[in-house]
């Protein structure tokens, strides 16, 4: 096993990997940019090396700097996390060429599956059903128009090098194509340094269900069941579950087998995820493979009891999988909510800034994988996720109830987050019944908009009274002492009594 491992990432996933290192007795080393000098992952690591300015292109995307830091620290392996360089063949190769171990699949597998166009061909060879469309990168809008007509509208534009919904656009008519193509290409360029996009058929009301793969370097490949990731905004997952509300063991076996076949066809090792679309008739279509750790890995960990990051590191070190497919048990149910620094009331606009106050949830069945702390200023340069909050329960209902409890305890002051949005969605009848697909959020907001506005009652509610008291108290204590002596003396008294209550 490695003595020392460098984490080529930041935020919550860097913290998550640090914790896996501690659990394995490995010394965690991190890198950081100017914007992350005071980041949590730096505080929790054994060693931290500065690698450049805030923009990722000058720090977290610069492979040489990261490999140099690893060599300086004496780390034997590099874990790329997700995003950034995690699916860059050249980086995996550079790491190995430097005599270090890349904690992930082989450069060959990354090259094959990392590009969705190649991946679709590989999946076809492995006999897995795929979404109608062409795997060709589009040269220009003209080719996009032509291909769309062949496949038939509605179609989906997707970044060839992409993932996480960046550079994706639904196009329902030829008119929408030009600007959609340009924006998708620009986003792909910004996110992945590669503007290539391709077209595939857009399936109506599909579920997004993915299979977790674990494979060692000795040819052993198993799957750990599925995750339901249909709750998406801007084609990016926000709520995930394990198992799927369908909880269909026959479907699970079929999809699992297909996923294992695809992974083996790609000579895949490490942990990885095969994403499928599932239509209303429960037909499934291969979508893409993520040749890396997924954000939503905790829900699988909670239900199977297997630590995926530890497994990933052990596999990289050459360990043989000790668990067989038939040993995999799925017990209970887990839900994850991605807490983003975004304003759900403003179409999820980014909301970077200083976290002035932070209260995190805890207690039975609650796991908060956070990358922030009170006083931290969320930078505008990176992904908006500040924490992935997961809950576990004996049943889906218990897991959801516990998530509601945890969200209620969660308070992030100073910036807007998706917490209030989750509190509403988790009480939505369709969500509770498990009637979900990738169009859920759009319909949810339509339903919400259609609701009649509650009439303003002349009476003050208790909530309003409390709010007024707090605002009045704060207003009064800001007045110059001279202004309201009588009042101020009372604040002093209150201060004293407050002091007493603690003695």
């Amino acid at each position, binding site marked *: 096993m490695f003595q020392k491992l460098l984490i080529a990432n930041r935020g919550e996933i860097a913290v998550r990997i640090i914790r896996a290192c501690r659990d394995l007795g490995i010394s965690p080393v991190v890198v950081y940019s100017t914007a992350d000098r005071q980041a949590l992952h730096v505080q929790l690591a054994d060693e931290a090396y500065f690698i450049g300015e805030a923009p990722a292109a000058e720090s977290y995307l610069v492979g040489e700097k990261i490999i140099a830091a690893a060599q300086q620290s004496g780390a034997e392996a590099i874990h790329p996390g997700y995003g950034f360089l995690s699916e860059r063949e050249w980086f995996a190769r550079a790491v190995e060429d430097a005599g270090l171990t890349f904690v992930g699949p082989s450069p060959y597998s990354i090259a094959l599956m990392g590009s969705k166009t190649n991946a679709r061909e590989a999946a076809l060879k492995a006999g897995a059903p795929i979404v109608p469309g062409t795997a060709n990168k589009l040269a220009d809008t003209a080719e996009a128009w032509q291909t769309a007509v062949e496949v038939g509208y509605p179609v989906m534009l997707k970044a060839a090098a992409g993932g996480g919904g*960046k550079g994706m656009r639904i196009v329902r008519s030829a008119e929408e194509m030009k*600007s959609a193509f340009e*924006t998708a290409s*620009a*986003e792909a360029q*910004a*996110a992945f340094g590669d503007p290539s996009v391709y077209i595939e058929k857009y399936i109506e009301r599909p579920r997004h269900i993915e299979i977790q793969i674990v494979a060692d370097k000795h040819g052993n490949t198993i799957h750990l069941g599925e995750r339901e990731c249909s709750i998406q905004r*801007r084609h990016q997952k926000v709520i995930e579950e394990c198992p799927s509300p369908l909880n269909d063991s026959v479907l699970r076996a079929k999809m699992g087998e297909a996923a294992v076949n695809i992974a083996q066809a790609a000579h895949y090792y490490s942990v990885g995820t095969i994403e499928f679309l599932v239509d209303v008739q429960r037909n499934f279509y291969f979508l893409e493979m993520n040749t890396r750790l997924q954000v939503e890995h905790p829900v699988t960990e909670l239900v199977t009891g297997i630590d995926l990051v530890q497994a990933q590191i052990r596999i990289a070190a050459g360990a043989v999988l000790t668990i067989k497919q038939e040993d995999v048990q799925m017990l209970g149910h887990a839900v994850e909510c991605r807490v983003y*620094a*975004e304003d759900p009331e*403003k179409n999820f*606009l*980014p*909301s*970077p*800034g200083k976290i*002035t*106050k932070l*209260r995190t949830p805890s207690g039975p069945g609650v796991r908060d994988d956070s990358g922030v702390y009170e006083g931290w200023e969320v930078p*505008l*340069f*990176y*992904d*908006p996720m500040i924490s992935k909050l997961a809950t576990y329960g004996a049943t889906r209902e218990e897991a959801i109830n516990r998530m509601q409890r945890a969200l*209620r305890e969660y*308070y992030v*002051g*100073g910036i807007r987050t998706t917490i*209030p949005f989750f*509190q509403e969605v988790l009480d939505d009848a369709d969500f509770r019944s498990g009637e979900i697909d990738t169009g859920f959020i759009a319909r949810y907001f339509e339903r919400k908009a259609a609701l009649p506005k509650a009439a*303003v009652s*002349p009476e*003050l509610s*208790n*909530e*309003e*009274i*409390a*709010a*007024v*008291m*707090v*605002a*009045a*108290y*704060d*207003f*009064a204590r800001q007045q110059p002492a001279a202004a*309201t002596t*009588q*009042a101020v003396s*009372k*604040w002093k*008294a*209150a201060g*004293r*009594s*407050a002091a007493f*209550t603690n003695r």
Partner: protein
Amino acid sequence: MKLLLHLNGKALSADFTNAEGQAVLTSESTRHAAYFSEPQPGFFTVILAGKVYTCALEKLPNGATEVMVNGQRIPVTIQDPKRLSHNAAAAGQAGGRAVLTSPMPGKIVRVLCAAGDEVTEGQGLVVIEAMKMQNEVQAPKAGKVVELKVTAGQTVNAGEILAVVE
């Protein structure tokens, strides 16, 4: 002390006192008494007739005050010349003049129009990027771009003026 308050579309005058952890709010000749404490700075516990309300005080960049009460966000305005002027400034629209402001802090990645252009309602004028997400700011009305305040590559704060359409 006497206060003039605005919240949830209501305007009311109220008298508020707080001593020895007992707060009293009198409004419209109704008296509300509560146990009132601030366990952490900006974090309050208000107990009204046994019911617990956990409140977090939030000051917005524009000077406005919002109170999160058991997870419900309630904006409260208290008579205060400084703040009122602030809010006045915040109101961007004036007659036929539409002022485009940045919806978020970020970087201008593309400018899709030039000063003097005639634009249609909903036409994309500027694309801003933050946290790896691109956001297209569109013309709120048809008209002429009389002012263009930003260029590609520069960073802007939330609420900063991007352009003016007339």
